[in-house]
């Protein structure tokens, strides 16, 4: 039974009828369902990744069902004694305004998730588009785009975000923009690198020769073949976005009070670290759990989609 070399991943194909472009991922010849199924089995073998996914889904549920789950109004002052320790009535205690900390943590998940997901998506859309254009067209366009990306890449994300907040003013929307701008460069770089490899493939050449428009080639033929590393980048960056958001809130440059944001809750709690350590420490547990989960999830997605990068 002659099977083409290195084709163990393909379905049984005794005649070798499945023609693959050289260098194209073998997954490209399979149906989407088969590929997704295989990815899921690979992902599910990694206990850390599954734990990360479970916690991430739990946080999403917490954010979506916050009004049902939160025992108190997160903004209502004096629902308990100020700086009260954790008790049956207030599982995570109360802060200096007598607000219920658990309710604020639950609502705080909204800010963290919205910033984490929206900013990374925004950065992905812009960065990938720039990377596609830069890699596909090359020449002066490539040089200009990539030099700007090099410049952006030199900024530490929190410092760029601080600068942007200084210019734009505070608020959730501006935090999203600031974090997104900081993440454009990595997406553009990853995309461009893979586009350079893919655009030399014969099927791209063939499409070009038959007169398919450049934009169609880019989005229909190039993009699907460079998607895996982009998704990996996206998964790895969400935790960074949440860390940046909480850092900005901690510095007092995030969503203005009284919006519950984990970083600001920790900052407010630091003042009372001697008499009421729970005010600063408990919101941090939520933040850390979210970041650990997202890091494990990101690592799992990387190992699943790009086994070469596995450490």
């Amino acid at each position, binding site marked *: 039974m002659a099977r083409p070399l290195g084709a163990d991943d393909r379905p049984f194909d005794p005649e070798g009828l499945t023609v693959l472009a050289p260098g194209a991922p073998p997954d490209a010849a399979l149906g989407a369902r088969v590929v997704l199924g295989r990815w899921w089995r690979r992902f599910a073998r990694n206990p850390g990744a599954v734990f990360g996914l479970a916690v991430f889904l739990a946080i999403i549920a917490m954010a979506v069902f916050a009004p049902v789950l939160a025992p108190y109004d997160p903004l209502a002052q004096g629902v308990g004694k100020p700086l009260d320790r954790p008790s049956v009535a207030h599982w995570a205690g109360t802060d200096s305004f007598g607000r219920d900390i658990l309710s604020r943590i639950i609502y705080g998940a909204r800010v963290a998730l919205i910033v984490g997901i929206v900013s990374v998506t925004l950065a992905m859309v812009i960065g990938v588009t720039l990377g596609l254009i830069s890699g596909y067209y090359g020449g002066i366009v490539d040089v200009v785009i990539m*030099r*700007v990306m*090099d*410049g*952006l890449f*030199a*900024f*530490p*994300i*929190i*410092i760029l975000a*601080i*600068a*942007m*907040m*200084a*210019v734009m003013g505070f608020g959730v929307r501006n935090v999203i923009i600031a974090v997104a701008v900081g993440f454009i460069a990595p997406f553009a770089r990853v995309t461009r690198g893979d586009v350079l490899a893919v655009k030399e493939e014969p099927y791209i050449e063939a499409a070009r020769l038959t007169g398919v428009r450049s934009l169609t080639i880019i989005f229909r033929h190039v993009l699907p073949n460079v998607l895996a590393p982009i998704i990996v980048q996206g998964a790895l960056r969400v*935790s960074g976005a949440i*860390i940046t958001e*909480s*850092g900005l809130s*901690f*510095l*007092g*440059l995030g969503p203005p009070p009284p919006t519950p944001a984990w*970083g600001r809750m*920790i*900052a407010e*709690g*630091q003042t009372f*670290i*001697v008499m009421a*350590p729970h005010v*600063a*420490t408990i919101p*941090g547990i939520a*933040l*850390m759990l979210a*970041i*650990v989960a997202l*890091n*494990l999830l990101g690592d799992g997605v990387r190992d699943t989609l790009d086994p070469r990068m596995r*450490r």
Partner: protein
Amino acid sequence: MVRFVISRLGQTLAVLFTVSVIIFALMRMIPGDPVLMMLGDDFTQDAYERLRSRLGFDRSIVTQYLIWIGRVLAGDLGDSYLNHERVSRLVLEAFVPTLTLVVASVIVGVLIAVPSGIIAAMRKDSAWDYGSMGFAIFVYSMPAFWKGIILIWVFSVYLGWFPAMGWVAPWTDPWQGLWRLALPAITLGTFFSGLVARIIRSSLLEVLDQDYVKAARARGVRQAALVYKHAMANALIPVVTVIGLQFGTLLGGAVLTETVFAIPGMGRLSVAAILNRDYAVVQGAILVGVVAVVVVNLLVDLVYAFLNPRIRVA
């Protein structure tokens, strides 16, 4: 090597140029008229025009950039709107504590990461391996500012071993300085150690799998000697790269850490400047921070090329 150095210098200059344009453009996007802000409420039209032309706002945007970058290159970052001090002096004063914290954190981080990375690699898939790598992910995922508060709570408030905050330069009073620097450096250093330990482990595992190490093992060299004499030198090269790649992250982490410990560094300076709308200071602080990152990256690349002849020649 000379060609490598020259091409790397060229890249660095290009990046610095782009960075300067980005910062210049950002500061021009601030809503409101900076001339009106500087004049306050009581002024004449004539005074307005004079100040506007003195600051160069009546020229084209390219000329304005050239004037600005010329001053920056001469070391003039302008004056603070607030107290009319030189921005360059304010920023450099604030940069010293921040840089000290970063350097101390790198030292703490490497001191923790090297042994834990070696143990993890030598006893791969053992409880030691899982324990130290789990710890690495744990400390890496703790946000610096929260970790700092926990350390203050445990070691200052509860145990009373370290002061909770404040800054004394270690070179004026070594004992006080290092004592106060300990908790901030542990805060940021453990983050760095989490990153480095994982890299030491994986690069050591890779090196231990190489033929020359296998040959040494076949000659009967003991495991410990194998690691320290034969593998470690090569496994440490990636650590140099990580210091370069992560210098920016460390600087960002230092900005947050020093806020927790009330260290008068770049973080406090720039946040106070933002809240006071003192944009010349914001601009100067960010410029100096990013330039430091770019320069450190250049230095690390050069050191890396020096350590690794394969890069130098290519």
